[in-house]
């Protein structure tokens, strides 16, 4: 009996210690670019790509929601679910297109954990590089704009995607840049531009 007690206690202590050690080591070997964001930490780790809602609730459509769901990574070292909020592009792009090909597969990722707002007691992740576990070559996580083009073949005109996106254009036409109606926009622009 004594032996079982000792073993279980030791296992518990080791598990907690392992989590603390790995939490401190995610920046080791990371090649991620840095930007001075809030609470920014380089982080390279391995884990399984998951549909977050499926992971939490058991509501699991095929192929992690086929690009319509927020995706995350269950980190292998500590089983923590990390929300992936951003890819490596600089045009307001999320990461679902970059992660989707790896749905329910094990990957290595390199990027940044960010955030220190008291309203969220964990950091979210910006994925910059990704590869299937076991592969040697990294892929840059920058698929979003090409995927947007294929989803919006009729979004013509000049300028970046966010000036031409049909849903954004429609919304701004309806409620203005400030969201308070075209009249408020007009007054503010006249006074400030």
């Amino acid at each position, binding site marked *: 009996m004594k032996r079982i007690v000792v073993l279980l206690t030791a296992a518990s202590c080791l598990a907690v210690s392992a*989590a603390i050690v790995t939490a401190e080591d995610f920046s080791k070997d990371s090649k991620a670019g840095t930007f001075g964001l809030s609470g920014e930490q380089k982080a390279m780790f391995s884990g399984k790509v998951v549909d977050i809602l499926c992971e939490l*609730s058991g509501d699991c459509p095929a192929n992690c929601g086929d690009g319509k769901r927020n995706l995350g990574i269950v980190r292998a070292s500590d089983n923590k679910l990390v929300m992936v909020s951003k890819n490596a592009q600089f045009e307001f792009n999320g990461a679902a297109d970059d992660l989707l090909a790896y749905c329910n597969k094990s990957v290595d990722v390199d990027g940044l954990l*960010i955030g220190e707002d008291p309203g969220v007691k964990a950091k979210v992740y910006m994925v910059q590089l990704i590869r299937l576990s076991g592969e040697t070559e990294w892929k840059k996580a920058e698929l979003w704009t090409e995927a947007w083009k294929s989803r919006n073949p009729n979004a013509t005109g000049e300028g970046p995607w966010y000036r031409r*996106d049909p849903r954004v254009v429609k919304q701004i036409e309806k409620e203005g840049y400030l969201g308070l109606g075209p009249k408020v926009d007009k007054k503010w622009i006249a006074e400030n531009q």
Partner: protein
Amino acid sequence: MKSLRLAMAGFAAGLLLLGGPSGQVAAAAGAETVEIKGEIIDTWCYLSGVMGGPDAVVGSAHHTCALWCAAGGIPVGVRAEDGTVYMVLKIEGEDPLAPSDTILELQSDSIVARGQHYVRDGVNYLVVANVVSNDGITNRNHEDFGVVPDFAIPEKK
């Protein structure tokens, strides 16, 4: 026997600190139905500080950027009155990255949302069953901050 129970409890506590032995076990903890009053926000700009402090990247000042980020597939959240941020995983039956107007229509609005609340590893998640009330954009902070980023409204040519 008492020692064994204590040791097993300690072991279980250790596993919980690790986030649970598996996602399935964590999911089994279940959700609670909640009603959250707050503002729909773009979580990346809010948490990263990339565009400025938290008071500048919400409301009317940041509305256009919030539309860009939502259309760009960045997670949308609800910032409750107490400052807690809830990541929206579904809204009125729609997946958040679905190519519809639902999320964009609500962006920056002050709402009361009813739905299922999950917590895992420090992050609050919300499956919004329905928007109980919507006061529109009440945070007119463009009067203090202008537009964020400053190129949100294109210059006239």
